[in-house]
């Protein structure tokens, strides 16, 4: 059954693909929010109204196929265990909101897990397209195609002046949230990020750490997304984000070059120490794991560490989060026990790569 695979595999098939600038930009995402005219928005709907909307959408989408993406699997949230939902959130296939706040909700997910359509989230439909690396335009094209396909089946709430009508005023207009997940270890090590983050906000973009609480960036991974959805075309929103991300890539590359040229031995020390921690520790909290994984990824990107693939690191990034870890070991774990299991899991995965001496 497909559902099992969505939950059991840490790395989505789409993540294994290659993409431009994949050493810095982990993924690109486009999300479109859409509502149906005939139903109250999920936030305001009574339970029976929410059920009606869900059934209406189910009737038209369950088993539906979209071109090359193939069939979508329909997953009812009411039928999942809390831990299974958490796994889907950690894979970014559904939002925390869908799990915590929604009533009678569902998600449609394609085989590659590159597209998910959430039903009865804050809006009736939330289309999400994920691409590896820096491919915002490709993701927008796909999302637009899926949007057109859905519009043949549903009448969307749209107003000539306000655009696509959404439950939250922050999404009205295009309903578009474009974002990238970006790994910026060198900008963090060289402490240049403090200067850059406020500048990004001035472009109407939001930068936040992911995998962490609040705005803390666990593992130096950030999410950058547009804040404004009204008064700009979809193409302009994506282009403005693309421009800023391009500059960030250049800055990160410059910082990496500086580290290699002026602090090579310190950089190597940091990278190999972290490798040593991952390969040998018996207890490792998620924070430390994320930091070490970031260092090792940087080492791989710069060719200092050979034999470890980005895929293994991607997998560990997802697999070492609390929900996935507990699912993997098929039991609820106390935080202390999680740290032990996490360390075991990481050691095993790194050993599997057959790397005894990572230096040469």
């Amino acid at each position: 059954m497909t559902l099992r695979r969505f939950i059991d595999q840490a790395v989505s098939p789409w993540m294994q693909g290659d993409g431009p600038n994949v050493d810095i930009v982990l993924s690109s995402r486009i999300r479109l929010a859409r509502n149906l005219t005939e139903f109250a928005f999920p936030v305001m709907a009574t339970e029976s109204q929410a059920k009606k909307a869900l059934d209406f959408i189910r009737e038209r989408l369950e088993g539906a196929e979209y071109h090359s993406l193939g069939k979508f699997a329909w997953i009812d949230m009411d039928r999942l265990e809390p831990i299974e939902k958490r796994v889907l959130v950690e894979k970014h296939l559904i939002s925390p909101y869908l799990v915590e706040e929604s009533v009678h909700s569902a998600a449609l997910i394609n085989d590659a897990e590159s597209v998910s359509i959430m039903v009865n989230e804050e809006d009736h439909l939330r289309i999400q397209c994920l691409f590896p690396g820096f491919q915002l335009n490709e993701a927008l094209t796909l999302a637009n195609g899926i949007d057109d396909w859905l519009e043949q089946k549903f009448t969307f709430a749209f107003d000539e002046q306000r655009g696509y009508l959404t439950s939250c005023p922050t999404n009205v207009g295009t309903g578009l949230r474009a974002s990238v997940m970006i790994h910026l270890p060198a900008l963090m090590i060289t402490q240049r990020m403090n200067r850059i983050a406020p500048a990004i906000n001035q472009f109407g973009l939001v930068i936040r750490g992911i995998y962490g609480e609040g705005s803390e960036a666990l593992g130096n991974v950030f999410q950058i997304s547009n804040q404004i959805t009204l008064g700009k075309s979809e193409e302009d929103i994506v282009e403005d984000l693309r421009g800023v991300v391009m500059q960030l890539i250049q800055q990160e590359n410059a910082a990496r070059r500086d580290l290699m040229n002026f602090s090579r031995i310190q950089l190597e020390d940091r990278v190999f120490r972290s490798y040593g921690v991952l390969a040998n520790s018996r207890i490792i909290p998620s924070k430390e794991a994320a930091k070490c994984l970031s260092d090792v990824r940087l080492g791989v990107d710069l060719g200092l560490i050979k034999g470890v693939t980005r895929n293994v690191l991607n997998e560990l990034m997802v697999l070492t989060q609390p929900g996935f870890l507990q699912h993997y070991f098929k039991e609820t774990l106390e935080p202390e026990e999680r740290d032990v299991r996490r360390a075991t899991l990481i050691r095993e995965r790194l050993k599997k790569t057959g790397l005894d001496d990572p230096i040469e």
Partner: protein
Amino acid sequence: MECQECHLRPATLHFTKIVNGKKMEVHLCEQCAREKGEVMAGSNAFSIHNLLSGLLNFEEMAGHSDPFEEPSVLQCPKCGLTYSDFIKVGKFGCAECYRAFRDRLDPILRKVHAGNTVHTGKVPKRTGKGISIKRKIKELKEKLQRLVANEEFEEAAKVRDEIRALEKEGDVS
């Protein structure tokens, strides 16, 4: 209220969920919620709520000048959401709310969207055909004015024909 799981710590998370088709209230402490996988990292939504509450206070402070005026309740006729509840919750209840609260929305949207109040992006292909044509006509009329001002009459004639054709198409649909 104590946490229903450990009965030790106070419950700080309250939400409803559906179990076997029945709505259930859940009250958990932070720690139990985390252990049960009910809470996820990174769910920090941009707080429009605070922004809107601020706006409401401002309106209340400005107040009604006439004390004898009946306080009319602005309410969406379709879903029943009142304007003051909209401000409190920060969410619209249905598509009709946008029409019901139309006169009050501009300042809110301007604040959230860097001064913008009008959509300029995508239009639905099937149901928005008329809107697309209207937009195109508006664009062409502006172009026509520029051409006439520059005395490029040959090109202007072409654009004028284009506008006429589009206007016909718009009438049909």
